[in-house]
């Protein structure tokens, strides 16, 4: 088998995700490295917005890639690779939120967690970047955190990650019509929560 590494170097062609996973399934680990390189950042941002904590998000993304490594043969060509990997990451993120909710119920001290300051990074180091924008980003993340996991998942996939409704239906495993109405309700709920947060300030 001709290795993916030599194909990329010789031809300069960019293999598709599906070509890479097929090569990885045949034992070419360089194809796995390319998939990690391609997906680590978008997945990290998706999961980060989902769970609201950077360290936790990085851990979940690593677990996602570990599962890809272990379960590569479960992938079938009928699905797009991107929807498959986002399904794994989304499920892990939801599990983490459920675990956290259980822990929260057990700990009275966590009642203070609504005042928690999220480590939203600056977009860049430009000193001219307006403080207002940073505040808005933080409030938006707080509003996202208030959404239920099912709303959060679809709105992040649609409005942050830019997936089509059809792709979201595949990732979440629900009918297309349900995705559309859920995205619509999630947007309205986010607007309502944000309004409330702004009024509280």
């Amino acid at each position: 088998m001709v290795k993916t590494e030599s194909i990329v170097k010789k031809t300069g062609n960019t293999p598709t995700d599906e070509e890479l996973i097929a090569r990885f399934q045949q034992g070419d680990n360089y194809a796995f490295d390319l998939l990690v390189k391609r997906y680590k950042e978008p997945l990290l941002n998706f999961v980060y917005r989902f769970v609201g904590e950077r360290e936790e998000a990085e851990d979940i993304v690593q677990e996602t890639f570990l599962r890809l490594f272990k379960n590569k043969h479960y992938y079938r060509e009928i699905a797009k690779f991107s929807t498959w990997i986002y399904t794994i990451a989304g499920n892990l993120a939801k599990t983490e939120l459920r675990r956290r909710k259980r822990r929260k119920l057990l700990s009275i001290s966590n009642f203070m967690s609504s005042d928690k300051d999220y480590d939203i990074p600056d977009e860049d180091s430009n000193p001219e970047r307006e403080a207002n924008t940073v505040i808005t980003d933080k409030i938006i993340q707080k509003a996202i955190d208030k959404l239920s996991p099912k709303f959060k998942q679809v709105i992040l996939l649609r409005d942050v990650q830019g997936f089509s409704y059809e792709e979201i239906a595949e990732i979440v495993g629900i009918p297309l019509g349900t995705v559309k109405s859920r995205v619509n309700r999630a947007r309205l709920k986010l607007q309502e929560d944000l309004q409330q947060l702004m009024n509280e300030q």
Partner: protein
Amino acid sequence: MISCDTAKSMLSDYMEHTLSPDERSSVEEHLSQCLECKRVFDDVAFLTQKLRTLPSIQPSENFDGQLRLRIAGNYSQASHPVVSRKGFTFGLSGAALIAVITFFVLTTNSPEPQPLIQPASNQVINRANQIASPIAHSKELQSASTAKLASSNDSLTEQPQKVNQNNIKLVDQVKN
């Protein structure tokens, strides 16, 4: 004129230009007369725009290295025989239960009167244990389970940093 609820249910389709011309004009008519819905529509349009441009974060520098370690660690653990600690414990407790039941059945069905408390022979206990859980009572698997337990302890000592991180996280959460 359509209701506020109907207008709101069409919000996404309106924003994404997927309404029929008739539906679109009915929404526009509603928005021209309902300030509350107009404000909601404007807010959502602003919000979706903001979501698209939220600052992104970068994976940490040692992301790839940590992933490699994680994969390598996972495979070194997987190379041990797979008998879980939990399964082993349940196997034993199940076996013990069956042993007790068998002991009572054998003693009560005996034609001659027997002392109330009589130690069961090793043979009876072994047989009962095998009936209860042939896997847990296979000698080879028992030693494999012990090896698995030992290795799980090793993995903890090998990754003190990870355990430590979890502790720190828990402490932080309590603080918050």
